[in-house]
């Protein structure tokens, strides 16, 4: 079960409005390499892990990722807070605004809504863990693209933190993969 704690994994405090970055960062809420996809992927895959190592690691990373979902949504919310209609039109958010206003809805950077087809559950330990490793690398690449686009430290710092978590998770998944591979799964 879950309990809400009134804090984020890493603080998000963005004062400067930036609709272009809001639109780009939203992809880590609703895109194929998003935190939402990561969280649901590990949460769903944990049920078919063969022993306590895999069950624990997937469960615990899934929970951490849900905290990252909240961080990303917080960034988007703060970056777009108080945007005027003129700003929305000028920065190319009019398509998004039509259906969602200034609400936070999981879509990718080009506006496609989130779908569970972004991840798989095969019930096969090595196949699932291979996907998890790839997912962490793809999320790392996405964060690097976002960091390249960003100019403000208040955006860059949380993105650097999230990027580093992908690296840690990749390594843990790889250690687990190697263990199961040696055991003959």
């Amino acid at each position, binding site marked *: 079960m879950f309990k809400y704690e009134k804090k984020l994994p890493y*603080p998000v*405090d963005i004062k400067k409005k930036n609709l272009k970055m809001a639109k780009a960062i939203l992809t880590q809420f609703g895109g194929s390499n998003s935190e939402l996809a990561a969280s649901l992927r590990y949460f769903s895959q944990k049920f078919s892990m063969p022993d306590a190592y895999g069950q624990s690691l997937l469960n615990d990373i899934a929970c951490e990722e849900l905290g990252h979902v909240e961080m990303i949504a917080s960034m988007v919310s703060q970056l777009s807070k108080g945007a005027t209609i003129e700003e929305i039109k000028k920065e190319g958010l009019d398509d998004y605004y039509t259906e969602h206003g200034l609400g936070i809805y999981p879509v990718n950077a080009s506006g496609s809504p989130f779908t569970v087809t972004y991840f798989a559950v095969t019930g096969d330990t090595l196949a699932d863990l291979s996907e998890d490793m790839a997912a962490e690398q793809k999320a790392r690449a996405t964060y690097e693209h976002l960091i390249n686009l960003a100019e403000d430290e208040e955006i860059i710092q949380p993105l650097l933190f999230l990027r580093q*978590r992908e690296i840690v*998770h990749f390594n843990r998944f790889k250690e687990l993969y190697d263990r199961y591979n040696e055991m003959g799964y």
Partner: protein
Amino acid sequence: MLFEFETNMITPSKEKLVDLDEGFTKGNMFANLYDPYKHYEPTCLKPQNEREALLLHIYKLDFALNDLNLYLDLYPTDMEAYEKFKKYAYDYEKCVHEYEKNYQVLEVCHDTYGKYTWLDNPWPWEGNHV
């Protein structure tokens, strides 16, 4: 048995743990896993008052606990890592209690200091939290 552990545990590797400040700033408690990005430098957050300092310390402890949690999931017999985990868990509980007593509750079930305050305090997504 419900919680049966296998006997072929993974041999714990000797991991070098960094301290709380460095780990949180870099997003990684493990020196050998740290991978910086280009010229970007993670910067240490500067709290503006006592409340922020205590909350930031809670963030750091929570982060270290989480990173050690993932490591211990794979290397549960690494006693050195476990001792660190135990110490951070103890400090975390202590700091959360102090913060909630003096400023605001972080979990709704801790809202037992005389009146229901869950609605009065800001949500973390609103910014200004640390």
